[in-house]
C-alpha cells in the first residue's frame, strides 16, 4: 500500500513526515510513496524523502515513488533531486 504524501509539505510538515517514513522504513518492507496529492514541497521535506529513500535502499528494500504531482515533479527537478531512480 502506497503511503500518500500530504498536499502541503512545507518545513512544518517535515518532522511528522520523517516520523511516518521512519516507521515505514522500520517495517523493512518495500516502500511505496504516492506523491500525486502534493501541492507544495520545500527543501525540508525533500531532504526527508531523500534520507528515507537512502534508508530503505540501505536495508535492501526498494523505494518506489508511485506517482508525483506536477508541483512535486517541478520542485524535484528544480532541486535536481531524483527520487524515482532505482
Amino acid at each position: 500500500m502506497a503511503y500518500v504524501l500530504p498536499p502541503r509539505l512545507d518545513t512544518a510538515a517535515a518532522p511528522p513526515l520523517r516520523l511516518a517514513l521512519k516507521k515505514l522504513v522500520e517495517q523493512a518492507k518495500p516502500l511505496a510513496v504516492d506523491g500525486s496529492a502534493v501541492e507544495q514541497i520545500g527543501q525540508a521535506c525533500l531532504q526527508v524523502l531523500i534520507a528515507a529513500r537512502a534508508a530503505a535502499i540501505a536495508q535492501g528494500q526498494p523505494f518506489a515513488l508511485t506517482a508525483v504531482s506536477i508541483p512535486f515533479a517541478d520542485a524535484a527537478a528544480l532541486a535536481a533531486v531524483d527520487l524515482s531512480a532505482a
Partner: protein
Amino acid sequence: MDLDAIQQIFFQECEEGLAGMEGAFAALRSEQYDAETINGIFRAVHSIKGGAGAFGHERLQAYTHQYETLLDLLRSGALTLTPALTNLIVAAFDMLADHVAAARDSGESPDDAVMLARLIAAASGEEAAAPAPAAPAAGADEIAFTPAPISLGDDFDDLMAMLGDVAPAAETADAAAGAAAGPQDWLVTFKPTPNALDNGGEPLLLLRELVRMGGRVQSCDTSALPPLASIDPEVAYLAWTIAVPASVDEDDIRSVFEFTDGCAVTLARGAPAPVTVAEPELEPVGPTPTIAAAPAAPIATVAPAPAPAASAAPAATAPAPKPAPPAPVVASVVAPAPTAVAQTIRVDLDKLDRLVNLVGELVITQAMLAQRLSENNMAGISELTDLDHLTRELQESTMAIRAQPMKTVFSRVPRIIRELEGETGKRVRLDIEGEMTEVDKTVVERIGEPLTHLIRNAVDHGLETTEERIAAGKPAEGVVTLSAAHHSGRIVITVSDDGRGIDRARVRAKAIERGIILPDAVLSDEEVDNLIFAPGFSTAATVSNISGRGVGMDVVRKNVQALGGRIGIQSKFGSGSSFSLSLPLTLAVVDGMIVTVGDQTFVIPLSHIVESLRPTDGAVTAIGVDGSVLDVRGSYVPIYPVAEQLGLGGGERDPANAVLIVVEADHGQAALLVDSIQDQRQVVVKSLEANYQAINGLAGATILGDGRVALIIDVDALTAHRVRTPRPMLAHAA
C-alpha cells in the same frame, strides 16, 4: 499492428496534445508563459497536422496548417502575442478539437471558413500589434512549412514532432547547440546555512530565481545529509551547483542571495564542456551521468498522466562542466537520466478489465481459503497472512493501473466555461486545483456528466451578471473553482462559485409552491439548501437552455449516488455556493465490516464507520414511541436497528444485547444496531442492479469466504428515514 490501430494511437495522441494545449492556454491567459509554452502549443498542432496528413484527414490537415502557420510566427517572434491573438488561438483550438472529433468519428467537419480567414488575417498581421513578415496563405492542403526562420534545435524538434515523439536527444541537441555557441557560463555553488529553513525560509525559491535567469541546476549535493534516524528535519543539509548563462550579470546573481545570512555561495566562470549530441543517446545509462541539468520547466517523467506533451517533456541534458564526485548509492542525483526506453505503454482496456476481474476472483478465493483453514484451526498460519498481504498489494497495484488523474475530466472544463461565457455574456475565471488527483477510471468516466451540470449551474445560476456583480461591489469577473483532493479514502470534488449564493427564502417559497414541503415545515438552512435536489425543483425564473437541459439537480444527485458518492452544498447568500461531491476511489472493492443481523450476514463499508460500541447502562435513551438515541460521550446519535430498517424478521432489537456501530452518513452520525460483528475484510462488490435490481438501503452484494452472498449496506440510504413498521421485504432475498 494495422493501420487502424496506428490511427487509433494517433487519435489518442491528439487527445493528449489537445489536453496539453488547454493547460498552456491557462498560462497564456495569466501571462505566465515563456517561449516553451508557445513551442508546446505549436508542437501539439504540428503533430496533429502530421498525423492528419498521414491518415488522409484533409480538412483537419488544412485547418491545422493555417493554425500552425500563425503559431509558428508567434514562436519565432515575428508576431507578438496580444490578448486578441490569445483569444483567437483559443477559439481556433476549440475548432481544432471539433475537427479532431470529426476525423475520429468520421463525422462532418465543422465549418471552418470564417476561422481560417481569421487565422490567415492574423498571420498577415492584421489582428496583431506587430507587423508580420508576409506569411503566405499557402494552399490549404499543402504540407510545406511556412518560411519562418528556425534554428537547428527547432529543426530537430520539428523532425521529431513529425515522428510523433520527441526523444530527449532532440532537446539535448538544443542544449548542446546553445552551450557550444555561448561563452563560459557562471558556475554557482550554493549551500544554505543549517538554519536557512527557520522562519519560513525556503532555499528552493532562490534556486527558482536563478532558473528564472536562465540558470540550470546541475546537481544536488546530499553528502551532508544524515541518515533518516538522526536527521533533524528542520535543518538545511543540501547544496547545489547551478550553471547560469554567461550573459547574466554577476551582480544580478549575487543579489539573489542578498538576504540569506551567511550561506556559502561561490561564483566562478566555468568552461562549457564539449558536447557530442549523440552521446546521451548512445549511453543512456552510462556510468558517468550523475549530473543532468534540470530544466526550468516541470518534468513529468514519473507523472502518472500521459504527459500531454510527451513531446514537450524537457529533459534537457548537458554534461556538467564540473562533475560531482561519484555519488553513493543514495545519490546526489538528479533529473531523470535521458533514456531511450519508453516510460509508458498503451494497454487495451479489455485486457485491463479482465485483469481486474481476475484479481477480484482471487480475493474471493483467498477469503474462501482463509475460511476453510480456520475451520481446521489453521487460521494463524503465516502463509495465509502473506497471501493476504500479497493479494491486497496485487489488488491495489491493479487498481493503480486503472487510476487516472482528474485532469482528464478537468481539461474539458475550460471549453465549457468559454461556451458559457459566450452564451450568458458573463465573465468567468476558472481556477482548477488538484487536477493530478488520481481516481479509478470508472469514476473518471462517469463523473463527467454530473460535473458538467454543476459547472453549468454555477455559471448560469450561481454567478451574477457583470452589471449585478459590479453593483454588489464584487469584481466584474466571476470565479468558478474546481478542485479535487483525496480525503480519508475518498475523492472530494468541489465546484464553487463566488456568485449570489442560494436565496433560501426563494427556495423555500418555490418548494412550497411545488408542493415539495408543507407551508409550515420547520427546516434548517441545510435542509432548505438540500431542497434543490428534490425532483422537479428548478429555481431559475425561466428555464434557460444552459443548465435547464432537461436535467435537474435531482438527476445530478442520483448520478452521484450511483457512483457510491454523496453530494453536499455549502452556500452563503450573497457570496457564493460550493457543491462538493465525495466519491469512492474505486467502485470494485470496499473494506467492510462483516456483521450478523438475525440469520443474515451484512457488510457495512468501513469508510462510513466511526466506531463500534456495546452500550453501557444508561447510554441509550428512549425517544418517542419506539425510537432511541445513543449517548456517545455527550452527543446523542439516533439508533437504527438494521433488522427493522430492512424489514427482517429476527435480529436483535434491544440495544443492551446488541452492538452499535456508529457511522457517518449524509444526515450526520447514526448508530446501526446489529447482533454481532464477525470480521473485517475487503470484499469485492457485485452490483445488485446488474444482477438483480436496485434495492433501497443496499449498495450491492458480495460473496463471502463460505460461498454465501452477503448484502452490502448503503449507510446513507438506510439512515435516511427511520422505519417504524417492519416491512417484510427482504424475507426472501439473500
